[in-house]
């Protein structure tokens, strides 16, 4: 079975696949969308590459969130909040 390909360049996915690849990376692609995307990926190195780099980007962004909040900063914010409430 062959799939429609529309490459824009070595680092770009096929134009009609970008949204679907984003949904796959988010784990939100379902049913026909998922099937079509996976089947397309099997034959398209550009889209595979795009999906891999997208997943890497998402993993990096998730890591940013995992940094623990600075306790000193949290204490200062709570203090600000309490003194503002006391003033009211």
């Amino acid at each position, binding site marked *: 079975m062959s799939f429609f390909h529309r490459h824009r360049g070595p680092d770009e996915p096929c134009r009609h696949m970008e949204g679907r690849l*984003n949904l796959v990376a988010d784990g939100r692609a379902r049913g026909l969308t998922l099937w079509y995307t996976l089947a397309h990926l099997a034959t398209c190195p550009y889209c595979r590459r795009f999906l*891999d780099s*997208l997943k890497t980007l998402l993993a*990096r962004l998730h890591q*940013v969130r995992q*940094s623990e909040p600075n306790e000193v900063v949290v204490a*200062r*914010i709570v203090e*600000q*909040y309490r003194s503002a409430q006391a003033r009211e």
Partner: protein
Amino acid sequence: MNSTDAEDLVGQTLLAAARAWGNFDGRYIRSWLVTILKNEHLKGIRSKASRPKTVGLEDGKELTEGSPEHEIDTRAFADEILKELDSLPEDFRMAVALCDVEQMSYEDAAQALGVPIGTVRSRLFRGRRLLRDKLKAYTEVPK
């Protein structure tokens, strides 16, 4: 925005949330807080625009003591990501920050931003594309 401004903003958000607690319907608390934060931020921008420009005493990053090497690397990388995230246009930045950094669902982010889910999705995908282009060195996979 420097770290002092960010702290002030979080403090004001908590205060505004406490004031508005009676009106909160009990659903989507994160979206509700993000909406308040966004409004407080806009309020701050508006009032700053009407004041003369000032320079903060503490405009740099906080110093950490005795961090192991890998933590320094992680932080340096996180700083790089946050710097590039900050440089995105507001709409795209908010979508990426809420969905990818805070890991909110599309639905919660749509609620927080007051836009339809489709709009969140298109802003998110465009924001990711811009960020991916800026952070190519970190996201590139070998050919």
